[in-house]
């Protein structure tokens, strides 16, 4: 190539290409940086536009309202007329004249005032001359004379000025007087337009005005910084940054509930965002996700590879509550509460340890004496497929073959033989049980219906008074109980459940022998007893069978839920789930399944729903099938999702954490013993009350407000050893045999429920006013409120049948909170709707309702009654009642056994709750 050729060669095309590339990449850089990676900008523009449109529409609507408001139109018209009137006719002329006068007067005033000011300056000068002359020792006379003259002129001028001012003011006030009509109308118009002005200002605040144009605000990243919320790799506190509101612009603004995401207002915003300040908590502590990411919704929501905490979907967000709140009983988080209940009560904890749930007593029945309890044929069937006998049982299905079920049954019967025989030795066969005796069975059935069995147990097929989730019974359905067990065992079990199984949840109903016989006779009419027990036992107890059974019992982890002799040292066979919610995907074993979506939630759902789903030829799985409803599995999943490694710093946790813990602990005890089967507690429960709709006062007492009502000490004692309080009730509070710890938790729960910090009460008898006590006694007497017509005091019983009695007032000093007594007397219906206790006062008005010859006011009388009640003692009840009535016996000795066996102090009870 020659030099000339080289010089002639054009690089224009290359340069053009280079320039084009450069330009394109510059444009691409700007586009990518400013638009593609900033989707939030468009969201903010769009939302701004929505806001502006709405605000403008509001202005227009307000304008339209004004236009169609006759009041406003009248004001506008009247104002125009009034203004015109000022300019025309006589008034117009008068106004013009006044205006001329005002002009003149103003001019005159200005002149005079100027002259006065000048004069004052001259006086200043004259003063200087006088003082100067004095200091210089010169003649003072002359300057002094000038000063005096000037002072004289000033006085004259001041009068002139004030006259001029008065004249001016007079004219102006005359003008104002005439104009006042207009001013008043203007004010009125302004007040009518105030709302429109406010809306107009709102529009202005939403835009950036530029001359005649207005633009939406320039988008910017919105973020909340949570100081010291997280910890870095060196365990140093670091801030967390949530930028969610950069896109979710309407989240904390009411009125955008129906807008599409990301503009939607937070659901139930009042509840969630007013109690959780967004500026403090941000979003991810509850919802998870990648709060700092703003480049795409997928990134921000944490739905990208390697982000460990993708945003919760649906009810799963309830798992987020637990990050800060003490336990899983939080308002509006029912799903996780159910999940925990299922996890604890269905028996997951038997195999899987979760921190905080390690000490839950065994979930399944006690098997040390099982040989004395069950029919061997029944047992084999049960082990093989529990849901066949009881569709809603908590016992899971292990998918045993028939031979395996026989082996397990054989082993269980074999190891429980010795302890069973020992127990049978001290628990002989009772006589007098006869399911064929119609009268006895009828009595047993009546007992079952009335003492409270049905608070927990279903007696007819399919009946379930207490469900755990959708498909599990809290306590077994007894409609075919005769198949399973034998009358001897049942008799002793009913009499003393803990005498058979030390951890039994079943309480003692304090049955008399006769009642127990009747009840067992009735229960053995439910289902057909199985036969062939002996022959089956012999077969099952063959050594080979028992040996195989032992291996299976060990392999499938039966000791996790059952106490089995010789297996006390077995540990849980499942993996620990304490931080299962943070489990990385790589650690979840999908086996050969490729059809299950690759998420934590899908893996876990299918695992619970179909426990052997991930089994392969090489990897065996042993988890049994619990047969939970899908919604219940969801609940368990929420609970599992909440099991996380992270700990939220105290600064972000609720101030009343202790109270939450107390409530949660108490609630767990309440659920364990199904107190809510009978009682309404904290506004929930009381299923059995549906049997008492006709006469609710015959049902178990409603315990809302119990913490405010009773003394903690008394409640502790009562829970430990219940005594009949209400002689008219057939249903009775059973003896649960609660531990000290459980009892304390319950007492603390009731106090916390009513917001009582210190539940202790001291009544100082010496400080009670004798005057009040005396007045109270008078008020309680037959001439006034006649309390003893219905109430008992120790052995002093009212007339008439027991069902007409009211509680023992001698218990008040030990049992009731003094403040509560006054509230109760003031308005019993308010504290216990439907109570038989009538209102003696009506505090809704100032009128006196009580007798006017006792003390000064109704309130004083209520306090006097309280003081009197606090002095009452059962032993002091010596005054004779009208007629000492014969003790009425109810059909099955209700409450009577307390009287028969307990010391006098225990028998005196009967109190008001319902």
């Amino acid at each position, binding site marked *: 190539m020659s030099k000339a050729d080289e010089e002639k060669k054009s690089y224009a095309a290359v340069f053009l290409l280079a320039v084009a590339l450069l330009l394109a990449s510059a444009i691409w850089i700007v586009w990518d940086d400013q638009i593609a990676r900033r989707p939030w900008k468009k969201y903010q523009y769009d939302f701004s536009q929505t806001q502006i449109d709405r605000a403008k529409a509001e202005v227009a609507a307000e304008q339209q309202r004004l236009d169609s408001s006759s*009041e406003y139109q*009248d*004001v506008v018209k*009247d104002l125009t*007329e*009034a203004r015109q009137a000022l300019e025309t006719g006589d008034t117009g002329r008068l106004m013009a004249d006044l205006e001329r006068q005002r002009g003149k007067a103003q001019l005159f005033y200005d002149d005079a005032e100027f002259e006065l000011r000048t004069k004052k300056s001259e006086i200043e000068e004259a003063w200087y001359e006088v003082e100067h002359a004095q200091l210089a020792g010169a003649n003072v006379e002359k300057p002094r004379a000038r000063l005096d003259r000037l002072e004289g002129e000033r006085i004259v001028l001041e009068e002139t000025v004030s006259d001029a001012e008065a004249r001016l003011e007079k004219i102006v006030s005359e003008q104002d007087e005439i104009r006042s*009509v207009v001013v008043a*109308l203007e004010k009125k118009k302004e007040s009518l337009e105030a709302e429109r002005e406010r809306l107009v200002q709102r529009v202005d605040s939403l835009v950036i005005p530029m001359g005649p144009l207005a633009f939406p605000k320039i988008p910017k990243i919105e973020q909340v910084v949570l100081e010291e919320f997280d910890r870095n790799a060196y365990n140093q506190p670091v801030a967390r940054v949530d930028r969610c509101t950069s896109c979710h612009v309407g989240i904390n603004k009411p009125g955008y509930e129906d807008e599409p995401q990301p503009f939607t207002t937070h659901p139930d915003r009042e509840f969630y965002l007013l109690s959780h300040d967004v500026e403090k908590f941000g979003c991810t502590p509850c919802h998870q996700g990648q709060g700092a990411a703003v480049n795409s919704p997928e990134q921000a929501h944490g739905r990208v590879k390697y982000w460990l905490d993708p945003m919760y979907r649906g009810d799963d967000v309830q798992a987020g509550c637990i990050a800060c709140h003490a336990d899983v009983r939080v308002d509006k988080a029912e799903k996780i509460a159910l999940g925990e209940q299922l996890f604890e009560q269905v028996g997951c904890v038997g195999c899987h340890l979760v921190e905080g749930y390690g000490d839950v007593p065994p979930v399944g029945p006690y098997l040390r004496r099982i040989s004395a309890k069950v029919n061997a044929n029944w047992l084999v069937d049960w082990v093989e497929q529990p849901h066949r006998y009881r569709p809603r049982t908590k016992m899971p299905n292990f998918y045993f073959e028939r031979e395996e079920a026989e082996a397990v049954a054989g082993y269980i019967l074999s190891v429980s033989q010795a302890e069973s025989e020992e127990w049978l030795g001290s628990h002989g066969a009772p006589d007098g049980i006869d399911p064929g005796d119609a009268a006895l069975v009828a009595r047993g059935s009546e007992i079952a219906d009335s003492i409270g069995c049905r608070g927990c147990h279903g007696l007819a097929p399919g009946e379930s008074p207490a469900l755990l989730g959708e498909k599990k019974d809290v306590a077994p359905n007894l409609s075919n109980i005769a198949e399973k067990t034998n009358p001897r065992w049942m008799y002793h079990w009913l009499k003393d459940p803990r005498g058979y199984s030390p951890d039994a949840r079943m309480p003692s109903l304090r049955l008399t022998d006769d009642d127990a016989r009747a009840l067992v006779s009735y229960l053995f009419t439910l289902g057909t007893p199985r036969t062939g027990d002996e022959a089956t036992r012999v077969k099952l107890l063959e050594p080979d069978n028992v040996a195989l059974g032992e291996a299976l019992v060990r392999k499938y982890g039966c000791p996790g839920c059952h106490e089995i002799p010789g297996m006390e040292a077995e540990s849980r066979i499942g993996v620990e789930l304490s931080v299962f919610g943070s489990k990385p995907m790589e650690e979840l074993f999908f086996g050969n399944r490729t059809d299950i979506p690759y998420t934590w939630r899908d893996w876990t759902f299918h695992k619970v729903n179909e426990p052997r789903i991930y089994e392969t030829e090489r990897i065996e799985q042993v988890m049994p099938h619990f047969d939970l409803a899908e919604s219940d599995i969801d609940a368990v999943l929420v609970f599992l999702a909440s099991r996380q490694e992270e700990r939220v710093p105290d600064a972000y946790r609720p101030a009343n954490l202790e109270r939450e813990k107390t409530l949660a602990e108490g609630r767990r005890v309440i659920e364990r013993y199904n107190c809510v089967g009978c009682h309404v507690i904290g506004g929930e429960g009381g299923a059995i009350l549906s049997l008492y709709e006709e006469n609710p006062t015959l049902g178990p007492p409603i315990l809302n407000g119990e913490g405010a009502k009773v003394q903690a000490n008394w409640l502790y004692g009562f829970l430990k050893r219940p005594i009949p309080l209400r002689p008219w009730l057939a249903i009775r509070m059973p003896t649960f045999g609660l531990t000290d710890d459980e009892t304390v938790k319950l007492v603390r729960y009731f106090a916390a429920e009513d917001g009582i910090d210190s539940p202790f009460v001291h009544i100082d008898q010496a400080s009670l006013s004798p005057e009040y006590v005396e007045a109270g006694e008078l008020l309680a007497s*037959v*001439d*006034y*409120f*006649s309390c003893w*017509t*219905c109430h008992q005091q120790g052995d002093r019983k*009212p*007339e*008439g*049948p027991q*069902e*007409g009695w009211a509680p023992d007032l001698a218990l008040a000093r030990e049992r009731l909170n003094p403040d509560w007594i006054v509230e109760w007397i003031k308005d*019993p*219906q308010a504290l216990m*709707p*439907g*109570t*038989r*206790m*009538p*209102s*003696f006062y*009506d505090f809704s008005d100032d009128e006196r309702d009580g*007798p006017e010859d006792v003390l000064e006011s109704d309130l004083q009388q209520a306090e006097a009654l309280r003081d009197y009640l606090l002095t009452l003692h059962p032993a002091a009840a010596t005054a004779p009642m*009208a*007629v000492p009535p014969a003790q009425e016996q109810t059909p099955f000795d209700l409450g009577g056994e307390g009287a028969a066996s307990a010391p006098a102090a225990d028998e005196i009870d009967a109190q008001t709750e319902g």
Partner: protein
Amino acid sequence: MLNSIDRAIRLLGVATCAALFSTAGAFAYEGGAVSGGGSIKGMVKFTGTPPEREVLEVNKDKEVCAVGVKKSNELVVGADGGVEFAVVSLTNISKGKAFPEGASVLDQAGCEYLPYIVVVRKGADLDILNSDGILHNVHTYSEKNKPLNRAQPKFKKKITEKFTETEMVKVTCDVHGWMKGWLAVVDHPYYAITDGSGGFELTDVPAGEYEIKVWQEKLGESTQKVTVPAGGEASVTFEMAAK
């Protein structure tokens, strides 16, 4: 300007009238003089064998309460099958005879409610008397009215209550379990309680067609159509059997 004030006053007047009118309610009963009205006479009859009246056991405060033999009033059937204590009323009348505004009276005497069924005008006073001079309590069971449970000790000779909704309200005394009575809270005067022979009469009914209803606590409800001739008498017989 004066015009506008004037207009405002006039508007205010109209608004007040409208408000008064609407609170009176669309179905408010309008009472006045009835000229040429007729009457409805009739009887409530029990079909079948009437049950024995239960004898109520007086087991408390006997010195005051044990006066005569107390029998249940839940279903009282006379010689000819006439049912006492049934409540007969017109269901669709909005204009008719004057509706007295005075208080109704329920007395507690001999530990019984006298009368057994009291007709109470909606919103008017019910004076509850305690002639016994011992503790009673007035415990009502109702669906629409607020439940009431007021003590009436010896020294309270009279308490006064109002009921704001029309319905049958049961009254009991928790002190004396056998005591029971009823309040018929009504919003027009065409109500009658059947007498011992099951008979009743509604007078001064403007001529026209009506629906007439009977209520009895054990037998339930029943309705019929009735035409009242001007100045004449219509006759109605209800036949009721045990439910």
